[in-house]
């Protein structure tokens, strides 16, 4: 068991130290005990443990010390609806059809493409929509259900604000948030993998 003395340290430090120790355990797993001196730190440690799918418990000791025990490893995972692993995949969609050729076919293909993105595990980290791609996040889009499902799984969906203004569909935006070009450039630059459509 690894014991971390985080007495006198304020959040996020106890959580960071515990998380590093847990990550250091690797696949074999193990037990990390963290000593803190306030209940809010205890709550944050248990919030982190639950989110990462680990069991945790705590014990109040003398002098206001609280020991939080986190168990990581095989067979210890609890069911969690926590955040999925970050895929680092960013998909940039700058049009409302896919590929060259028939426009009708292009629309069908793009709908299928977005449907398939929804099936990826883990889901894409971020979807960026600009130019005529902005129509896909509007309420009349036939991909809206797929996009909402991905948003619920934690995928960040952003649509170019200039574009929805240009097309006059600002009021129709039905999923995700409005982004500016700085957001789009930052998301593309920080992407681990980037798909451009």
């Amino acid at each position, binding site marked *: 068991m690894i014991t971390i003395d985080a007495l006198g340290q*304020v*959040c*996020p*430090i106890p*959580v*960071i130290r515990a*998380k590093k120790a847990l990550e250091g355990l690797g696949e074999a797993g193990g037990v990390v005990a963290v000593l803190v001196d*306030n209940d*809010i*730190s205890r*709550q*944050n440690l248990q*919030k*982190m443990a639950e*989110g*990462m799918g680990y069991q945790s418990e705590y014990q109040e000791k003398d002098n206001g010390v609280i020991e939080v025990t986190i168990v990581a490893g095989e067979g210890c995972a609890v069911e969690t*609806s*926590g*955040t999925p692993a*970050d895929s680092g995949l960013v998909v940039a969609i700058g049009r409302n059809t896919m590929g060259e050729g028939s426009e009708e076919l292009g629309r069908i293909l793009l709908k299928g493409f977005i449907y398939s993105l929804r099936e990826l595990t883990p889901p894409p980290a971020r979807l960026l929509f600009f130019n005529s791609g902005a129509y896909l996040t509007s309420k009349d889009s036939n991909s809206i259900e797929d996009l909402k499902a991905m*948003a*619920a*799984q*934690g995928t*960040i*969906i952003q649509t170019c604000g200039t574009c929805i203004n240009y097309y006059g569909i*600002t*009021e129709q935006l039905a*999923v*995700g*948030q*409005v982004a*500016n070009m700085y*957001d789009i450039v*930052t*998301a593309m630059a*920080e992407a681990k993998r980037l798909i451009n459509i």
Partner: protein
Amino acid sequence: MKSFLSSCTTGGCGAKIGPGELSKVLSGLPVFQDPQLLVGFDASDDAAVYQINEDTAIVSTVDFFTPMVEDPRTFGRIAAANALSDVYAMGGSPLFALNLVCYPEREDIQDLGEILAGGAEKLQEAGAVLCGGHSIYDREPKYGLAVTGRLNPRQIWKNNTPQPGDRLILTKPLGVGIVMAALRGEMAEAAAVEAALASMQRLNKYAAEKARDFPIHACTDITGFGLLAHTREMAGGSTTIVLYPSALPYIAQAYTYAQGYLLTAAGQRNRNFMEGAVEFGDTPFPLQELMLDPQTSGGLLLSVPGDCAQEALRAIQETEPQAALIGEVLPRQDFPILLG
């Protein structure tokens, strides 16, 4: 002043006494009655408003806190922007201000000069006059201002008077608390820190000036209690506010940091305080944390009639490009806040 940030147990609006704790003692105080006191502390509004004559009321507010950044001048600017914010949130214009200073004997006095210079810069930008102050020795540095402004008593923006059909505009991105926590943990990227510092130093003056052209029903500034607590306050007893988590403006990296559990104590205190007032449902964990994140010198949350909300947003975005429509106001439902 390398010890500046690390010497403090907690910084910025994250240092505020929790809203739950505070209400325990405030409820024991007598309620002062004066027909000229248009807004007092019983309304838990951002500042007090006192009527002088038919056309003039003064708005008075005080705010101070410990440093959340290493650079003293930046800290001074942030503290002043934050103190001035309450005047803007009531719809007023600042007239003059007094400095409030707590400073350790052992620290370099030049750094205090830098803090005060940063504060003075922001007062100049606000068009207000610095006219004195008070300073004492203390274990940890603290700085802020008592600000007096003026407003038209017929055009006070209260914080809990939205109307069903209104839409909500938030003028600054969320996440400054999480980014500064990441900085404390030495895990913050420079671009994220830069965005947080710029946001905290930004006066709410510009958003308020744009908003004055519209019939604002309610307004508050977002502080250490986080977006959700302010939203609940705004909803009051007769409305329910629907927030759209996916529409929230936030500092991009803050989402990633929240996902990595860079969690603040104040954020968790706010979560405890909001228990029973909101159902998070499927809302992704990082967005929950962003809505609970303590904001130092946060943006204005404006409740605007639905028929002019888009126009108001466009006007505000001319100076505050990150402003966004983040929710709407309904007649009262089961919960004061619903997530849509």
